[in-house]
């Protein structure tokens, strides 16, 4: 691990690109022991394991071992080879050519070729993957020029294009199993076939999912651990107890409550890491419904920013596993800048702004996220802060289904959320602020209804430029503008700490953390 970081730092420092050199060769730990069984928590039970159809958190946690993308990403979000061994970009930024690794086989023994890749991107995922469909608007065509070469042609240069290839965004699915079938009801969905380091073995619903090492994996010497069990334990306190009793080796981020993380991390033989979320960089905020007064008044929104003590919330509700957000960009992603207007806690100023905003004492409804204790505590703290400056606030309790529906239908005043930023502002940030992304029916677009043509233009410029300097320029301006306008009240850069037994070596080895495969982990 350390050696790998050193080599990478050295490479970056010398300005040498390490693209094309398999990361495994750099990272190979010759002393790592092979074999053993790993026990991991999964929460909730995934709806399915066919990554092309479902991409929610639990599915990615498990299926990231079965399905692979063309690339993976290190913790600095630099692309690394996975199913592609190398890639080139044409000077005009519109043609990307990928060389695929030779000798890669699907779990049923059939060879993986560029025809599978074309089918995955152009046929399968276009039909099933809403997030990728949005990102692929820039794509003109994708062709297999020979069995191991793949050529993407873009309509216009698209800066973040190389950020689309990890296994949750663009998983490769086997053409020979899915072509010409109804993807959603194909019986093969129950026995997923990928190219990854682990094969699907058994799923006892309500109990566990078992994966077994793929002996024919295309990276020599991997995977290291022989069997991986993912245990389904529905209750958060019971998950903490199961980890504490020693039957569980890894509790992925979010599987135990934050107060338990703190407690369990102190036990002997237990380690905790916040790494592995760089690609997702979860960013939380308070959604503000701009369609109604007084939320449509910028002074009201600025008052919220001044009233909410994000520092205290990070300490109390998140037990230190969060850091106050300064604006729309998470500091882990590209082009994030701290050079933006600041909103320190200032109740007097908040009251003054509120008075100017035309707020007449109406009751404002806040919809907390029904995802556990931390969100509940945070809701109580927001309520207290806003009550102090004179806002009448009512907390509206829902379960997850109700929360989704209310946001899909814009039936809220204020609401908590967090979104992933996917390493690049064009992939994970723009979607919440551009006016073209206002549409009912999704809790993950411009739900607040913010419209600003300058912001639209800047995000478009940032996405369509390929040289970092002009992207930087557009994104710096848009950050300043957004922070001034407060379309949403940013709260925290959240981290989801992973708890694990110290005997597990190297559990997190990329910027997508445990959602990448666990192939490089070993048991001491």
């Amino acid at each position, binding site marked *: 691990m350390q050696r790998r970081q050193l080599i990478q730092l050295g490479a970056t420092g010398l300005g040498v690109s390490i693209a094309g050199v398999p990361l495994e060769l750099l990272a190979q730990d010759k002393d790592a022991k092979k074999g053993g*069984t790993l*026990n991991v928590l999964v929460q*909730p*039970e995934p*709806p*399915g394991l066919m990554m092309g159809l*479902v*991409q*929610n*958190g639990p599915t990615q946690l498990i299926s990231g071992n079965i399905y692979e993308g063309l690339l993976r990403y290190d913790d600095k979000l630099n692309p690394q080879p996975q199913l592609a061994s190398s890639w080139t970009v044409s000077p005009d930024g519109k043609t990307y050519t990928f060389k695929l690794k030779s000798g890669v086989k699907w779990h049923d023994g059939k060879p993986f070729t560029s025809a599978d890749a074309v089918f995955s991107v152009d046929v399968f995922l276009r039909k099933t993957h*809403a*997030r990728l*469909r*949005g990102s692929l608007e820039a794509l003109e065509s994708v062709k297999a020029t020979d069995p191991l070469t793949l050529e993407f042609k873009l309509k216009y240069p698209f800066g973040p294009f190389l950020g689309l290839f990890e296994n949750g965004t663009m998983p490769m699915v086997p053409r020979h199993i899915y072509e010409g079938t109804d993807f*959603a*009801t194909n019986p093969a*969905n*129950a026995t997923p076939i990928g190219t990854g380091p682990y094969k699907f073995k058994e799923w*006892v*619903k*309500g*109990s*566990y999912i*078992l994966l077994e090492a793929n002996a024919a994996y295309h990276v020599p010497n991997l995977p290291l651990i022989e*069997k991986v*069990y993912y*245990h*389904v*334990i*529905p*209750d958060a*306190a*019971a998950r903490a*107890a*199961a980890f*504490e*009793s*020693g*039957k569980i080796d890894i509790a992925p981020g979010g599987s135990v409550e934050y107060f338990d993380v703190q407690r369990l991390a102190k036990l002997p033989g237990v380690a905790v890491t916040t790494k592995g979320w760089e690609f997702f960089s979860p960013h939380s905020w308070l959604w503000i419904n701009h369609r109604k007064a007084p939320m449509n008044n910028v002074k009201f929104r600025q008052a919220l920013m001044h009233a909410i003590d994000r520092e205290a919330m990070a300490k109390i509700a998140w037990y230190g596993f969060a850091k106050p957000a300064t604006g729309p960009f998470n500091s882990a992603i590209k082009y994030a800048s701290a050079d933006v207007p600041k909103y320190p806690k200032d109740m007097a100023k908040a009251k003054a702004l509120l008075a100017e905003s035309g707020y007449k004492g109406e009751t404002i409804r806040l919809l907390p996220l029904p995802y556990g204790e931390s969100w509940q505590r945070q809701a109580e703290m927001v309520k207290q802060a806003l009550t102090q400056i004179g806002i009448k606030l009512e907390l509206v309790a*829902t*379960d*997850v*289904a*109700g*929360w*989704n*529906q*209310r946001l*899909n239908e814009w039936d809220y005043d204020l609401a908590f959320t967090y979104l*992933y930023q996917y390493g690049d502002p064009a992939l994970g940030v723009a979607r919440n602020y551009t006016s073209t992304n206002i*549409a009912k*029916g*999704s*809790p*993950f*677009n411009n739900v607040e209804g913010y419209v600003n043509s300058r912001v639209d233009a800047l995000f478009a410029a940032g996405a369509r430029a390929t040289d970092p300097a002009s992207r930087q320029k557009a994104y710096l301006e848009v950050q300043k503008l957004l922070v001034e306008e407060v379309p949403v009240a940013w709260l925290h850069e959240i981290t989801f700490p992973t708890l694990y037994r110290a005997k597990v070596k190297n559990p997190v080895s990329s910027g997508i953390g445990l959602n990448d495969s666990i192939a490089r982990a070993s048991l001491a």
Partner: protein
Amino acid sequence: MKRLQYMLTRVAQGLLALVLIATVNFMLVRAAPGDPVAVIAGEAGASDAQFVAQLRAQFGLDQPVSTQLGRYLGHVLQGDLGFSYRQQQPVVDLILQRLPATLLLTGTAFALSLLFGVTLGALASRRAGKWLDSLITVVALVFYATPLYWLAMMAVLLFSVQLAWLPAFGHMTVGAGYTGWAAVLDTGRHLLLPALTLALFYMAVYARMTRAAMLDVAQMDFVKTARAKGLKPGRILRAHVLRNALLPVVTLAGIQAGGMIGGAVLTETVFAWPGIGRLMFDALLQRDYNLLLGCFLVTAAMAVLFNLLTDLVYTLVDPRIEL
């Protein structure tokens, strides 16, 4: 003959009740905000109009509710409980996979609570006013008043985390590959804590009820007569007192048996017991309509069935009761 006729009438009534229950459930479930499409779209982390429309069409949710209800009832009458949206499997299969685990858990808890409850109650009544009676009464009161969830958590902390005597979760040691007696023993070890926590509440209820009923019956004339005839105290207790005191216990046991499957939700959740209670709970959170309705219907059918059985048991306990 009369008995057979009675049974047939009751079964017919039960079936009618089930159809009504299915209809009411269908309407109630739809009245909750949110639908499976909202949940799935939310879980996917991204969605658009095309995605949502695709799912709605796939689930048949684009039809009017009355059409959906008609279609659902039609299928139910043919024994088809539909398809689970989220788990992509027929509801019947999902329920049948989970039912054995729940029956094992609740059946064990039922037997434990009846056995210990009635025994403790009988003991307490024989020693009425003595220290044993007080001890049993206090213990019963504590178990009666303690929330099941808390009790379960404390049991896990003590026996699994601190003492490491019993497993903390699941219904078997995953990956151990036990067979024969080793497997039975392994399941038994996993069963102990959840079955006990589930049993304690009803054990307390039966103990209190048995004690009160026995003290009541012991005052009656026929018991005095039996005593005067010189019957042995043990026989008086079993044949005269206990038998008559059991009627209210049977009533309550019937209710417990009927509600057992639904009542195991908390225990199954805390102990990660892969039963139908948890299946139902997950289906509720995910608005997996067909699966939820299927679980409701099966639990309702159990309640109807146990009601009927309770009435039959009455006649066995007390032959004077007529059907």
